[in-house]
């Protein structure tokens, strides 16, 4: 087993463009970094050296893109073995993936929506179990943003919780995705979060998005986090307690100082909620 470093506090999704700066010094205030293993596995040269320098100093977690956990193509066990090796090499605490699919016999390199059906629950949960068997550790599955559902026999919340329960895996709660989906599919975001199994939430994602002319929200990770999503994060902490939380920014990436404002805002919300819980504890005692 790897000697992984547990994560806490506020983190940031590491892009290759940030690595050249972060390998010199990771900015104060970043407690952990997240990488997509499929962007780094098998790389040598400059990128590999940068990542090694970073992971020696800052805890790393992995967020996969290509496993296609609910997809029709056979499970790519070579990829899982390679991820296990990467996890050991960089002492990674967590491996998360998306509750979606991305391979129909060929890779599509994007996240497609699963139908919310019992068949999809059982099939996906079975594959998650197989991955966990190979890895020797729990997977963390993310609630994805989606623009339509190929079939809806269950609600989204029922689907997500059924998979988590049957697979006995953890949840990466993407609060921005909850907000995006609540607008695109007209539901109450806090009501959704209340249905999620709090004890299974390993960590949280925050991100910005883009609103189209007709009001549909596209989950771009290309803008600042909006206020309603910050409020939803605070409400989530109130419900579940403070969880490790990271900012994803994949497009229109601003300067690090600008990004750090949002990472620090995560910490501010965490400290505020910790204080509230501490005070409540004193009152109760």
């Amino acid at each position, binding site marked *: 087993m790897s000697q992984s470093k547990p994560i806490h506090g506020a983190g940031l999704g590491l892009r290759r463009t940030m690595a050249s700066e972060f390998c010199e010094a990771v900015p104060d205030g970043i407690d952990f970094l997240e990488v*997509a293993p*499929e*962007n780094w*596995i*098998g*790389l*040598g*040269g*400059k*990128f*590999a*050296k940068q990542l090694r320098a970073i992971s020696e100093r800052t805890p790393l977690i992995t967020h996969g*893109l*290509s*496993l296609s956990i609910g*997809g*029709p193509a*056979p*499970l*790519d066990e070579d*990829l899982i073995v390679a991820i296990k090796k990467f996890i050991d090499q960089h002492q990674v605490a967590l491996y998360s993936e998306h509750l979606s*699919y991305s391979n*129909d*016999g*060929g*890779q*599509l*390199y*994007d996240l*497609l929506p699963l*139908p919310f*059906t019992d*068949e*999809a629950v*059982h*099939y996906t949960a*079975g*594959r998650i*179990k*197989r991955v966990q068997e190979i890895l020797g550790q729990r997977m963390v599955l993310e609630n994805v943003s989606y*623009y*339509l559902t*190929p*079939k809806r026999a269950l609600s989204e919340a029922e689907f997500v919780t059924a998979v988590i329960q049957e697979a006995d895996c953890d949840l990466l709660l993407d609060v921005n995705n909850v907000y995006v989906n609540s607008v695109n599919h007209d539901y109450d975001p806090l009501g959704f979060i209340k249905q999620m199994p709090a004890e299974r939430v390993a960590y949280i994602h925050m991100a910005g998005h883009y609103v189209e002319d*007709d009001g*549909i929200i*596209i989950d771009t990770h290309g803008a600042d986090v909006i206020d309603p999503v910050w409020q939803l994060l605070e409400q989530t902490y109130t419900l579940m307690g403070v969880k490790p939380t990271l900012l994803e920014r994949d497009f229109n990436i601003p300067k690090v100082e600008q990004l750090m404002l949002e990472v620090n805002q995560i910490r501010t919300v965490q400290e505020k909620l910790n204080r509230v819980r501490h005070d409540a504890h004193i009152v109760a005692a």
Partner: protein
Amino acid sequence: MMLTSLPPDSELLRLQTNFTQHLRNPDSVPVPEGLDPRRMGIYSSLIFHNISSLVSDFFPVIRSLMTDDEWDSLVREFFITYQAETPYFPKLADEFLQFLLGREGANHTPDYLLPLAHYEWLELCLFLSESELPGSPVDPESLQSKRLELTDLAIPVAYDYPVHQIRSDWVENECPTYLLLFRDKTDSVRFFEIQSLAFELLTAMRDNNGVHVSDWLANKADELNQNVGSFSAFGMKLMQQFNSEHLISCADT
């Protein structure tokens, strides 16, 4: 029972297949029944732009030589006709090169496209390679006396076009071109323009697990009726240049 693949009569399989067949080829395959065309359009547009931007990052010169329409139609053809298997994003460059090789001779494809694609792919391969350069150069004595081989991070290549000079606003005429492409000590990828004879020597060093370079040069001078002394001196000077970049190692250690 743990089910990790789907039976042929699976509803899930049918829903997913209908979904992705439309996404790969939205102009020819209709939107699956019951699904909102506006929202399917979001997916087909997101997925296409994602692939297009990934591939253009790997082949920036090729992208810059094409109009938007030409590029879009090439990427669309890739997406419809080619099943990319790699889960690793940097390896998508390999898949795109394989796709281009498979459509060799296709209409409207300029002759320089394949050599240029190979050159851009090779630059990326060297930049990302897990190999490392030897820690030190070969000592001058061994350069003369030992069998020498090329490091994995130096690759001699021959093209029909001067691919290294092609720019978005300037395509060179056909002309035999020999390069030694390599990753340097600072992990940057560079090239030396070389002559056909140097290409022959470097290829021999690479393919034969090492070559006794001074013997090779003497034989070649003989074969070409050249003065052995000056020919060999020229060849060894070239070796010293490559050696100073740590591109050479002794084959027998």
